[in-house]
């Protein structure tokens, strides 16, 4: 397999690509989950627009928090790679 070089480790470039590819969609999905939760709670409890607005904001916040945590994870990994001089994983 061309994407699994010698030691069988997934190459650094591929890992980076996949990490970068995951960030955006989580934000969008969190927003929509928040929206859906608010909408159905409103329908159930009959408190028309309020829970929708609150849960939409909560969803957006959750999405941003996820992006923030992911960015911090990447940063920590980067520092680890540079500090420890990882075995050929940081490309």
């Amino acid at each position: 397999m061309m994407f699994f070089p010698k030691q069988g480790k997934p190459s650094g470039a591929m890992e980076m690509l996949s990490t970068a590819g995951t960030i955006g969609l989580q934000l969008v999905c969190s927003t929509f989950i928040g929206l859906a939760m608010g909408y159905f709670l409103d329908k159930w409890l009959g408190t028309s627009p309020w829970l929708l607005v609150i849960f939409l904001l909560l969803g957006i916040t959750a999405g941003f928090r996820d992006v923030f945590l992911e960015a911090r994870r990447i940063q920590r990994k980067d520092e680890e790679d540079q500090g420890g001089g990882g075995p050929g994983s940081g490309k």
Partner: protein
Amino acid sequence: MSAGLPEPLIFSEIINHSFGLHLPVHVYYMWLAMIILFSCGLMLKGRLQMVPGGMQNVFETIIGGLEDFTVKNIGEEGRRVFPFICSLFIFILVMNYIGLIPGCDAATANVNTNAAMALSVFLYYNYIGIKKWGFGYIKHFMGPMPALAPLMLVLETVSHLARPLSLTLRLFGNIRGEEIVLVLLFVLAPVLGTLPMYFLFLLGKTIQAFIFFMLTMIYLKGSLEHAH
């Protein structure tokens, strides 16, 4: 086929037509992937060698590499959950590659396949977390500060529910998009137009399978490690 696009040739329709069946297209290709994997497994099981050669070598490279990667990220506990995520990876990879064969369609280009897999991932990592931490698993949802715990509980619930959705949509969108581009290019310039795209999509499909694997691993890591 759906979205009004003409497909050059779909084998499953021929099978459906000749046997008078009405099974959905993507179910066939999922079964095809399962047949391929089962026969590979059964073939290799019979003649395992100390010095691997041929196909055993390929599988040992992939699985060994992924196991190292998992153990490096999760720790020794990763070995226990590794079979699940590795079979998911290989299964998705084979299903994605089947989409590249002319006349076939990727089973992952249907949102139902992906939703099923994403839901099993969701249930599995929560099960692992509850099994390990018992009732204390709820601490994973509370965040570091006790004062903010009710807010964090809602935020974490939203973001945990968004995980299977984003897993599903990412895989579906990418694979479906690639299939549509292949068909369109085939209509524009048969064979000549599609051939260069194969190299790009080979990379794209591998990366999508790997993303699914890696995200599952990260979620499992989150439920296995100690709450903040």
